[in-house]
């Protein structure tokens, strides 16, 4: 039995959701990835370039400190995104030398990388004004699942954008609306809930990276198949 997760992230300026497929559908994650890629290409999406998302977690040597998760995304090659646990969804956006700083702190024994590095690698596709990133998540040579990221690029307004992405997923991958709404991650549902009180619902890349972080940490906790 193989449990494959399709994680739908709306990068750039919208949002994502998580959908668990029936476990008996595919024999391996590679086969599932191939099947979805074929489906996307048949629908008219065109391959552009590879994409990659990395997550490195730095655990503190001192017990009082917090674990720091550092993420990098190939869409933002000059930036790195850092998140300290229990920091109320606040993400630090720094330039990519921040990783070098964390490694320096590691050599000074302030932090250590006990947790394994998570990687999501795959293909970036384009369809009309949508950008689709389909990748395989792996943890030290072990495949954990699939990540699918969908973005509608010329927009940063979340309310209408979410409906647009939902409809895109329904039509392109034949996913029912209820399934998409039911399996939305905590970060995403929190963001959508918070929109009710806000006038300006502008989407920023940190929200995407927060969603990635949730997914990758969740996958790390899963036992290997």
């Amino acid at each position, binding site marked *: 039995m193989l449990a494959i997760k399709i994680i739908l992230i709306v990068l750039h300026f919208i949002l994502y959701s998580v959908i668990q497929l029936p476990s008996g559908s595919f024999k391996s994650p590679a086969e599932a990835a191939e099947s979805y890629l074929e489906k996307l290409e048949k629908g*008219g999406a065109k391959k552009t370039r590879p994409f990659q998302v990395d997550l490195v977690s730095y655990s503190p040597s001192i017990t009082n400190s917090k674990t720091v998760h550092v993420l990098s995304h190939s869409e933002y090659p000059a930036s790195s995104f850092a998140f300290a646990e229990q920091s109320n969804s606040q993400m630090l956006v720094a330039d990519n030398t921040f990783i070098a700083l964390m490694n320096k702190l590691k050599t000074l024994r302030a932090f250590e990388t006990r947790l394994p590095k998570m990687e999501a690698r795959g293909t970036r596709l384009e369809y*009309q004004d*949508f950008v689709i990133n389909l990748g395989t998540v792996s943890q030290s040579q072990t495949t954990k699942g699939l990540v699918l990221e969908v973005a509608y690029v010329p*927009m940063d*307004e979340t309310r209408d954008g979410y409906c647009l992405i939902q*409809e895109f997923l329904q039509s*392109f991958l034949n996913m029912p609306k209820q399934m998409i709404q039911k399996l939305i991650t905590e970060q995403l549902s929190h963001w959508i809930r918070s929109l009710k009180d806000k006038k300006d619902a502008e989407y920023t890349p940190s929200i995407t990276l927060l969603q990635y972080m949730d997914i990758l940490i969740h996958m790390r906790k899963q036992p290997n198949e």
Partner: protein
Amino acid sequence: MMPGTGNPAMNIQARQNQNDEILTRCLNITQRLRENLQVLLNTTKQAANIETDEQSLSSSTTNLSSNSVNSSIRNNIDRKLYDMGTSLDQLVAHIEQYDFKLLQNQQVLISHYNELSYEKQGILMDEWSTNAKWADKLIDIFPLLHPSNQLYRRSNQRNTNSNIRLRIDGPSSPFIDRIVAQFDTSQQQQQQQSATKDYSISVQRLSDHLNIIEFSLFRSGLDIYLYIRHCTVEHVIVKPLNEKKQFSNNFNNKLLTNYRALDIIAGHIRAAAVYYAPFGAQADQALGKLLIYISKFQTLHAQKCVNCQKHLLNGLQPTWRDFKTYECYHEECLN
């Protein structure tokens, strides 16, 4: 008329005198022609005035009085045209009598002739157009013939009256400001209930006759640039609002967008600009209607296609808005 034989010096002098006499007669005839043309233009203007008065007041009493006036004017025009025809015949006859061969021996005259050419002096045409009174008279009559083209007439009149060649100075900027203000007022009246304004409109003036209207639709995230010369939409560019936020310091609104949906919308707005401004239509009405049409793209991401009841078709929203009903369709659903 060829000169006879005899003393060559005297012969040349006689030929010269005869040519001078012919020239004097020709000048007199030309003067008479100009006077007749002046009277003819005045009479035509008078006739045009009477015609417009008749259109505004169509009563039986005025018809009787105007009929007699019309017939006298017609007779006057006929007489003047006949006079002008006779004068022209005389002018042609005199020119035929002119001894052109005599000029070939006179280098001075030939060089003077060259001096009169447009290439050397350059101001000859301007001088001619300024002195020609009939051109001014034509401009006076023009609004009676085409009352809708006020802007063109005014700018053109200024251009013709000046001695120096001016650039076309269209008074379109206040005109566009007025249209935008009217649109703003009408939209505010419609959106009284909602506290926040979901659009912004501004006019950027590049010159007296070239303006850019920037129309931002916040809900749909569109930034629409209308390049307007006088009151004609020359070019339309649609960009996403988020691009402006990201590249505010280095934002180029002259480049076309890379996004498919926005490119299609720009094409539709260009089509609407042509549709709302047919030949002879009021320029302010056409531009006002176009602004209303553009404001209907506010629901780009929310409204479904009237035909297929879907929002996305082939990854695109319903980008077409009907010119009359403003209903939205996908391009594929139109047929």
